[in-house]
């Protein structure tokens, strides 16, 4: 009984397959143009899918040797040392997270503030040109930002900025140590500028879809414009703004060239001192690929790439879920 049932299921599936092929054949004969066009399109799409899968597969298979050799200690090892054939990316992960966190801390309030200004306070005439300038910030190639960071920002930080911070805020753990100019602080500042346009653009998009009735209701109650923003707009847009911030975080985590130019590329002992030089996952790759053509060294560089891929994938998926959930976002009430 059982056997015949599965047998009939199999034959039904076979029949469906035969039908499908027959339909395909019919289509190929009747409408060769459509058949060719669809076929070509599907083929190219499959190629795109293959590329994405291929990227993941190449990184995964390439990092197998170091995964086998070091396991989880790859994440905690201090040294990236081809001479002694021991590899770890702890300083790089630390540097990546610290600089990206720094960038988020400053870019979120500034970015959201800019969005508020452009949407609510800005005179109508100024709106388009200001919005264009802010958006254009995203179009600057990162090597140009890096150029400015290394030749202008870093020397300024070393001579003026960091000594000033040390003199006035030196009691904080962030502003201790020797001012180098290049280092985690410079990288964090550069990243702030680079993720600002993304955060503002998305904040503006999600704040623009807040129902007008909700703003007007609060205005009718006698609220000031800031209170409208504070109580009617921002709570409504919170999920979307968070999504935009995480999208910015993804960009900050993966930014390579500008960070490589200003971060110093020298591991320091772990601390919160922003004046120290450091490494990020992407700058490890950019600095080490030159000699790493075989063995564990080769594999270690690729595993750094794999980690970077995993971290950015995770942040992007979370961000997209938050942004797409916007339609169902909770309508913020008065919580005074």
């Amino acid at each position, binding site marked *: 009984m059982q056997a015949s049932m599965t047998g009939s299921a199999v034959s039904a599936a076979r029949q469906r397959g035969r039908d499908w092929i027959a339909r395909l054949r019919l289509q190929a004969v009747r409408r060769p143009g459509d058949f060719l066009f669809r076929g070509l399109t599907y083929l190219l799409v499959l190629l795109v899918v293959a590329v994405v899968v291929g*990227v993941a597969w190449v*990184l995964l298979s390439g990092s197998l040797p170091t995964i086998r050799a070091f396991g989880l200690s790859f994440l905690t090892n201090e040294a990236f040392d081809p001479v002694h054939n021991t590899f770890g990316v702890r300083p790089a992960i630390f540097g990546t997270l610290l600089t990206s966190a720094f960038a988020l801390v400053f870019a979120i309030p500034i970015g959201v503030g800019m969005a508020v200004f452009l949407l609510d306070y800005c005179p109508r005439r100024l709106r388009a040109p200001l919005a264009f300038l802010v958006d254009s910030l995203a179009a600057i*190639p990162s090597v*140009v930002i890096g150029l400015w960071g290394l030749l202008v920002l870093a020397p300024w930080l070393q001579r003026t900025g960091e000594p000033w911070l040390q003199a006035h805020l030196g009691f904080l753990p962030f502003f201790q140590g020797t001012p180098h100019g290049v280092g985690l602080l410079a990288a964090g500042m550069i990243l702030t500028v680079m993720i600002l346009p993304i955060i503002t653009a998305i904040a503006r998009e999600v704040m623009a879809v807040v129902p007008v009735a909700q703003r007007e209701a609060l205005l009718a109650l006698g609220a000031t414009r800031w209170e409208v923003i504070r109580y009617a707009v921002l709570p409504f847009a919170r999920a979307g703004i968070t999504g935009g911030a995480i999208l910015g975080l993804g960009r900050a985590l993966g930014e390579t060239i500008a960070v490589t130019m200003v971060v110093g590329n020298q591991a320091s002992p772990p601390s919160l001192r922003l004046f120290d030089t450091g490494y990020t996952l992407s700058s490890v790759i950019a600095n080490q690929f030159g000699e790493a053509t075989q063995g564990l060294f080769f594999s270690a560089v690729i595993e750094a790439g794999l980690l*970077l891929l995993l971290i950015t994938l995770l942040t992007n998926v979370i961000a997209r879920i938050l942004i797409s959930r916007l339609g169902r976002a909770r309508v913020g009430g008065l919580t005074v």
Partner: protein
Amino acid sequence: MSATMVDTAKHPFRPDRPALDARRRAANAAAVILTALFAILASAFLLYLIVYIARLGLQFINVSFFTQRPRAQGEAGGGWATALQGTAVLVGLAALVGIPLGLATGVYLSEFGRGWPAATVRFLVDTLTGIPTIIFGLFAWVLIVVPSHSFSALSGGVALSIIMIPTVARATEEVLRLVPRELREASVALGATESRTILRVVIPAARSGILTGVMLAIARVAGETAPLLMTAFGTSFFNTSLLRPIDAIPLRIFDFTLSPFQTEQNQAYAGALVLMLLVILTSLAVRWATGGFQPRGR
């Protein structure tokens, strides 16, 4: 009766309390000033960057910038001809591969895709957008550079082409969806086949939008450095072989910036100026052509 009673103790807006009122006005004024300051600072930074780079770089923009090879380190003079040639070759290669792939993906998502296959492809395309570009450099490096024992223009083009795919695909999908259903139905009613409808009616109707996506993708990869470090690598010679290293504007900016020589650092500004103008003019032209100053951040 009780429905109209407002708990005045908790009500935030109290016209009967002038001190509170003044504080609320002050908060509003502070918000105006602070947010305006942020917006003006960000815009001012962009203008400052352009002016600063132009001021230092403009002196090198002359005939030899476009016609000469780079000189030996520390020697004055020389130009960016190899970098310009290399960027043209790399972007051309990337466009040759990336645009058809992106277009096909966009057409599939808007016209053919249904159910889980379409959802999967859309997810993968979104994923591609968020992956750091150096990962694609690493991919091309492992796949082409390491086995062939040589950095090459080909590997650089491959890395850049992958970066182009999601931008072109999403732009194509979005504008194809905007083409009215009536237009497709009219075409089919006149006896056109599916492929004819898409190729002769739908795509031409969405032409300017697709072109926008393509231009933005080109502008984006023209400024990419990270994936080229480990693929195209850079050279100070003209190169006619796709299997040998090739120069690029961003790579040369990177090299010159890290150079210990003042003359080369100054030349980096010239390259940055040209690259920035290239990228900003492209996006400006696109915005002008499409007639909108819409936000575009992703």
